[in-house]
Each structure stands twice: as structure tokens, then as C-alpha cells.
């Protein structure tokens, strides 16, 4: 049994009368890829929002490596080693691709505030090389001087992935990383995510594309109407009648 790095225990979150998450428990083991699937509006993104500090749970806790995440601000959570790719790409639209990747590369990893008003970007060759490599990893090296706003949605997603990967996070949260991508780009992203898995990075992935889910996930949890209705290996989930009813229903 591997160590579990992310514990979500008994998390509740409601918006007004809508119960978005109720009694959610989740354990993510170190080095694994844990997929969360479920129909639209099931609370998948809300669950990730609770993990990165965008939302506070009404009840319950999210614990990562012994740290209670819901007591921290988003920047502190990132400092603990959690990076996230958002459903709608959160990038720096006015900056070039290279600058987009340089910003996370410069974020000091000890949480301290470093001003560095007089060091020169041009001279930071080591960090620049790393940034260019990160762009090359996602296949965007040729566009590094292009403004990020001009990218297609799929490319923005890959850029955001590069921005997360350059930080070498311990836990990577991916909210539909292949939505809006062509089949070819999807396959490339899947290959990239497999490479990262080889490096031992823990990942939580939300995805609608079952091809992506079943080629990446070690474990799958199914969320429906704010509740985890099943958890298990891909094969167990495929054979679970409750899941088929709630989510895969039409496909079988």
C-alpha cells in the first residue's frame, strides 16, 4: 500500500440551496493518477476549487502531506506543491508564451518575497533555458515570442500545463486538460501526461473523454450529484452497475 498524499474527508459545500458537494471522501495515493469522472454539474470542479483554496468547504477538510489546505490561501497552497490547470485556461494573455512560463519559474519556492528589481531577465539564462524546455515539452517552443492571447484554446491549455509543470509540483490537478483539443493534440497531451507519471508526480484529473481517462488513470472515482458513488480501478468502475446508470448509461 502506497502512502496517500491527498485526503479529502467529509467535505460539504453548498451554494445557496444547491448542495454541490456532500460528504465527499477521497484518498489519492502517491505517484498515482486519480481520475474523477461524473456528469456535468456533479461537483467535480468545485472539488478542485476546494483543493486549491478558491473555495472554502462548509464542513470537512482537505489534507495534503499533513497540511490542512482549507486553512491556507491559494498562493500558500501552491507553495506546498499543488499546481492546477483550470477548466477555462488561466494564463497571462498580455504576455508572451515565454514570459507566461517564466513567471511560475521565478515564483520562489520557499514562499518568501523576493523583489529582485535589478537583476536582468536576459541574464537569467538557466531559468530561461528551463522555460524554453517546458514550452518544448508541450510542443509550443516555436511560438515562444507570440502573445498568449492569440493562441487557440487547446494551445492555451497546453501553455497552462507547461506553466504548472515548470514548477515541478508534487500534486498536479488537471481540470479537463484535453477539452477543446483535436484528437492529435489530445494524444500528444496524453503521452506527455504519461511521461510525467514516470517521474512520479501525483495527479488528479477531471476528464470527460473516456479514452483519456482509461489510458491514464490508476484509480477512478465517480462523482454524481455531489456524492462519490464509486471508487476503484478502471476495470472495477467499468463493471459497476451504479456507475453505468449514473454516467455511462447511454453507452452500454
Amino acid at each position, binding site marked *: 500500500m502506497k502512502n496517500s498524499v491527498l485526503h479529502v474527508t467529509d467535505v460539504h459545500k453548498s451554494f445557496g440551496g444547491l448542495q454541490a458537494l456532500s460528504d465527499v471522501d477521497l484518498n489519492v495515493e502517491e505517484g498515482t493518477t486519480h481520475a474523477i469522472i461524473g456528469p456535468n454539474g456533479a461537483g467535480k470542479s468545485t472539488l478542485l476549487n476546494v483543493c*486549491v483554496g478558491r473555495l472554502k468547504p462548509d464542513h470537512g477538510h482537505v489534507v495534503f502531506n499533513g497540511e490542512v489546505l482549507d486553512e491556507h*490561501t*491559494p*498562493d*500558500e497552497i*501552491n*507553495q506546498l506543491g499543488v*499546481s*492546477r490547470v*483550470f477548466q477555462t485556461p*488561466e*494564463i*497571462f*494573455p*498580455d*504576455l*508572451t508564451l515565454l*514570459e507566461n512560463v*517564466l*513567471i*511560475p519559474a*521565478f*515564483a*520562489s*519556492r520557499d*514562499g518568501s*518575497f523576493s*523583489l*529582485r*528589481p*535589478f*537583476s*536582468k*531577465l*536576459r541574464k*537569467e*539564462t538557466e531559468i*530561461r*533555458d528551463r522555460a524554453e524546455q517546458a514550452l518544448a515539452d508541450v510542443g509550443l517552443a516555436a511560438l515562444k515570442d*507570440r*502573445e498568449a*492571447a*492569440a493562441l487557440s484554446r487547446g494551445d492555451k491549455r497546453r501553455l497552462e500545463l507547461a*506553466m504548472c509543470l515548470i*514548477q515541478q509540483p508534487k500534486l498536479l490537478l488537471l481540470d479537463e486538460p484535453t477539452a477543446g483539443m483535436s484528437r492529435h493534440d489530445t494524444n500528444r497531451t496524453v503521452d506527455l501526461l504519461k511521461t510525467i507519471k514516470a517521474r512520479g508526480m501525483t495527479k488528479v484529473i477531471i476528464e470527460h473523454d473516456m479514452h483519456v481517462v482509461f489510458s491514464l488513470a490508476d484509480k477512478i472515482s465517480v462523482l454524481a450529484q455531489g456524492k462519490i458513488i464509486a471508487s476503484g480501478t478502471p476495470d472495477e468502475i467499468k463493471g459497476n452497475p451504479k456507475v453505468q446508470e449514473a454516467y455511462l448509461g447511454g453507452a452500454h
Partner: protein
Amino acid sequence: MKQIVSREPFALLAFAVVILTMPLWLTPLGANYPDLLQKFAIFAIFAMGFNILFGLTGYLSFGHAAFLGVGSYAAVWSFKLFTMNVLPAIAFGMAFSGLFALLIGYVSLRRSGIYFSILTLAFAQMCYNLAYSVLTPITNGETGLQLTLQDPRIIDRIFVEPGPGLPETNLFGIDMSGYPGFYFCAVVLIICFFITRRIFKSPFGLTLRGIKSNQGRMGYTGYSTRPYTLAAFVISGMFAGLAGSLLAVTDPLAGAERLQWTASGEVVLMTILGGVGTLIGPMLGAWIIKYFENIFSSFNKSTLSEIFSFLPENLQAFAVDISSLFVGEGWHLTLGLLFMLVVIFLPGGVMEGWRRLVKRFSGGGGGSPESAPVPQAAE
């Protein structure tokens, strides 16, 4: 990785040459008198500093005149209490405005967008009103803070016998009025340009631009943004304080009108007119506004009649009547029209116009159409 030759010395040298030869190349424009040249240099510093906050972080402060005023008062007090040497005056001006910026920034930066603007405006108007009321012992109210014969000037008294009249501000014996005053301000401007350029090209500058572009993302990327915005606010406040103390250096009196919101608005206009977020745009904007203020406001009916003297008499009277609306007291109208034209047709200010020209004349737009303007293009 390819090694790029640093362009810094060249950029700096070119800038220094342009600034120091201003008296020469401004002669044809009729703007080569020291008073105006000093203003060109001083307000360029003010606008450049303002741009570090507004241009890089996107936080629009409507209260920067407060720091200008504080810088002026601190400088004049240094002249009154210690010495007529300008260096301590500048140091005091920057230190006090920096302190004010730290306090005002600490509170105002809790909000962003329009709320931040309103908070800074409120603080500046508060300073303005205090200067007229409670703080009259420090600011001398409506009269303004001036030098008097009774000033202690303790450091000067140790070295020299006080002369009969009011002393002049000086830099180790060189009088700071007229052209020497301009050259002093020009050197300070060149130093400020160097600092600003360095900030633009540093990781700090990149962080600030990231905050402007997507502040939320900065949080999820591990940055606590407040210390960075506060640092930008304080630096920009100190630039304003420096400009304020230079105003006192060239003319040693400080009045509360320097703190008023119109002065804060003026620096916003300068920055937008020249090009927000560009390195030299705000300076160009400052020059344009100060030029209009001094040249157009000095026109009167008789100069206009002279200009239109080639017209028949009736037409001449008509032309003078119409155009006199736009000069003299009415120069604000000209400025307003110019500002509207720029904002509507060149939202990126003068610098965007410049880039478009360059593109047109470099082979019909050699670059790809998507190569949108980058902030550092201003070199």
C-alpha cells in the same frame, strides 16, 4: 543559448544625449527657456514613476499628487531648517513621500480596480484639505511654504555667513536656477530612466506585468501579490516625491494646490497620452502637456491677430474669435480635444502611433500581423 550583446549602454547613452541636448533641439519649437525645460524633466520623472504603478501593475492611482506635494514640502523644510544644498532636500522629499506611499498603499491596495482609485483619491484629497486646515503650521496654508530670513538653516550657518537677501538653492555652490537647474534635473531624469528601464526588464517587472494581466493566476502560481504591488506603489510614490522636491529645488516654495486632484489627474493624462506601460511614452506625454500648457496658454488675442493678419479683416476677426477659445485660458480645451483624439484613434498613445509608423515604413509591415505591441518596444 545565443548570447545577446547588452543594449543597455547604448540605450542609456542615446537617452542621455537626447535629454542633455534638449535646449538645442527645442529651440525651433520656442521651448528652450530654462523654466519650461526644468518642468519637462521634472514631470517626465513624475509620469515615469506613475507608470511603474499604472503601466506595470494596472493599478490606477488617482492620488499621486499627494506624493508630489509631500516631496515639495519636505524639500522646502530641508531648505528652511538645514541647508540650501539640494541633495538633502531631495533625500527628504523621497523619504517622506516613500513613507506616505507605504501608509496609503498599505490601506488602498486591499482593494483593486475602481475601489483602489477612489481610495487613493480620497487619501490625496484628505492630504489636500489637511494642508489647508489642521496642518497650516507645517504647510503655511494658502500662502504656501516659503523661505524666510528668519529660517534657522543650521548647517549653512556653520559654514557661511548668511547674506543680506534670501539664499538660492545650490549644489555645493552652483546655483540651481536657470540652466544649471535644468541640467541638474536632467541628470536626475537620466538616473530615473536607468532605474525604470532596469525595473521593466527585471523579474520584478515581469511579476508586476503578470499581476496586471491576471492577478488571480498569480495566486495559484505561488505569488502573494500584495508585497509586489506595495513595492511598486512605494517606488512610484518616491518618484513622485523626487519630482516634487525638484519642483522645490528649481523654485523653493510649496503650495497646497500641488496636492489637489487636478494634479493627480494630469499625470494620468500624461501617461495615457504617451502610452501606458511603455518606457518613454509617459515622458513624451508629460512633454506634450507641459508644452501645450506653456505655449498655448501664453497666446492672446493680439498674437492671434498677428497670425491671421493675412486674412481679410472680417475673416481675421472671426478666425481670432474662434481660435481664441482654444488658447490662453482656454488651452485646456485644446488639451481635452487632443486627449479625446488620442484615446479614440490611438488607445496606445503616442507610442502606438510611433509603432504604427515604423511598421508602415519598414516594408509595409514586415512583422507578422499578430506581433502585437509589447511593452518594451519603447526604446
